[in-house]
C-alpha cells in the first residue's frame, strides 16, 4: 500500500490528504499556487503509485473555495491517472463539494466533470 501523502494548507495552496489506510482522499481549501506544476506534481506521482495497488473503493473529495485554471488542469490530469484504478477492478468516484451559493466553483466543477470519464458528483454542501 502506498504511503500517506499530507500537504498542509497555506493561504493560497490547498490541504491535501491522501491516506489509503484510512480511506481518506481529499483536496480542500484554496488552490492558487504560484507554481502549479511544482505543487501538483508530487500529488500526481503519488497517484501513479497508488493506482498500481488501489483500495477496492476510492471516494475522492475535492472541496475548494478558490481554483485557478492551472489548478483545474492539474486536477484533471490527476483524475486521468486515478482512472487507472478501474483497470485493477477497483471503483472510484469524485465528489466536488461546493457552497450552493457559489456558482463560480460549481461551474469549475462542471468543467472538470465534462473533462473526465470518472463518476463525478457535484455535491452542494454548506462549507
Amino acid at each position, binding site marked *: 500500500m502506498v504511503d500517506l501523502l499530507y500537504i498542509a494548507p497555506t493561504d493560497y495552496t490547498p490541504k491535501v490528504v491522501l491516506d489509503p489506510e484510512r480511506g481518506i482522499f481529499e483536496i480542500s481549501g484554496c488552490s492558487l499556487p504560484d507554481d502549479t506544476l511544482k505543487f501538483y506534481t508530487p500529488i500526481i506521482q503519488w497517484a501513479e503509485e497508488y493506482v498500481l495497488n488501489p483500495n477496492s473503493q476510492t471516494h475522492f473529495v475535492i472541496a475548494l473555495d478558490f481554483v*485557478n485554471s492551472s489548478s*483545474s488542469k492539474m486536477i484533471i490530469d490527476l483524475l486521468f491517472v486515478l482512472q487507472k484504478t478501474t483497470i485493477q477492478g477497483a471503483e472510484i468516484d469524485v465528489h466536488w463539494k461546493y457552497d450552493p451559493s*457559489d456558482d463560480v466553483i460549481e461551474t469549475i466543477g462542471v468543467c472538470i466533470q465534462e473533462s473526465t470519464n470518472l463518476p463525478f458528483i457535484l455535491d452542494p454542501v454548506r462549507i
Partner: protein
Amino acid sequence: MKDIPLYHLFTNVGEHDFFLVYRGVFSDNLTDKILQLNEKNVESSDILSSSRKKISFLLVESFQNILRYGGVLNQDLTSNTGMFILKLIDHNFYITSVNLIDTEQVEGLKCNIDDINSANREDLKKNYIQRLGDMASYTEKGTGLGFMEMVRKSQNPLRYTFQDHDAKQSVFYLTICFGDHARVDKSDSLINDQIYHYFVKNDILLTFKSEFKQDKIQPIWKIINDNLSVLSANNSANKKRFLALVALSQNITHHAVEQKRGILQVIKRGERLLFEAGNYISEANRTRLDQHFKLLKTMNFEQLHQYYLKQLSSTVEADFSGLALIEVFKYATQVDYEFMYDGDKIFYRISVEI
C-alpha cells in the same frame, strides 16, 4: 499628469523598488495588510530590523493621520476621500497620507508642523513628554503628538503641502521620509499633488508597482479582496474579480521580463471594476499573446467554454498562461489589450472589466 495611461504610470514614476497608491477602504484590518505588504517587499533589502520596526510604526501613524484629519472612516467607497502613498526608493521610504480637511484647519496645521520640524531633538523630546502629560486638555484630533512621533522616529522633517479643493476644503498631503538618504529637500517629486486629483477623477482605488513575486503581491490580493466585499454584495461577481486579479498577477510573475516588474491597477467603473495590469514582455510572448487575443475575441461565451474544455483536456504540455487568459475572458464583461514599443522594450497592457 493628465489622463496618464498605465504605461506612463509604470515608467514615469521612476524605477521605484516598490510603489503603492491606495484609495480604498481604511480600517484597522487594512493596517495589518499594509504592514505585511511592506514587510514582504523589504525582506530582500538590506534594511535593518530596527529600521523596519520604525517604518511599521510610521505606516500606522500615517494611517492614523488619515483617520484623524480626514474624518472618513465609513465603508462607503463612493464617499472615500483619503489616500495613502507608499514608495521605497533605494532603501529610503516615503509615506504620504492624503486627505481632505476643512480649510480653516490649514493655518493651524502649518504652524504645528513647522514648529515640530524646526525643533532640535532634545526640544522635540521635551515637548513630546510635556504634551503627553497635557493630553487631558486636548480634543480627540490634532494633539500634534502624532506629528512629533513621526519626526522623532523618521529623524527627518515632515514634508507637507495644501491644495485648494473647493470653497470649504483643502487637500492635505503629508509625507514622512525615512532613510539615510531620503530626499527631504526636494519639493515636488515626493508629493505629487496631481496624483490625488487624477486618482479621484478616474476613480482609481489602487495602483501597485513592484517585483511580482507571489509572496510580495499576496497582501495586495488580500487588500483588494477586502474591498470587493465592501464594494459589492454580489459574491459571484466578487469571486470572478478575485480570480481574474490572481490570473493577471500570476501572468506578470511568470512572463514579465526585467526582474518580474509589473504594475496593477484597480479602477471603479460604476457597478463594475476594471483591473489593469502591465509589464514588459519578450517579442516571442508578444506574438503568442497577440494571436491568442485575436482568436479569443472572435468567440462568443459558448465557444469560449468549449475551447476552454478542449484546452483543459489536452494531453499536450500544459499552457497555463493560455488557460488563464481564456479564464479571464470567461469571467469578464470586456477585455482589452495593447502593446507599446519603447525602444527595444515591449510593454503589454491588459484591462479586464467585471
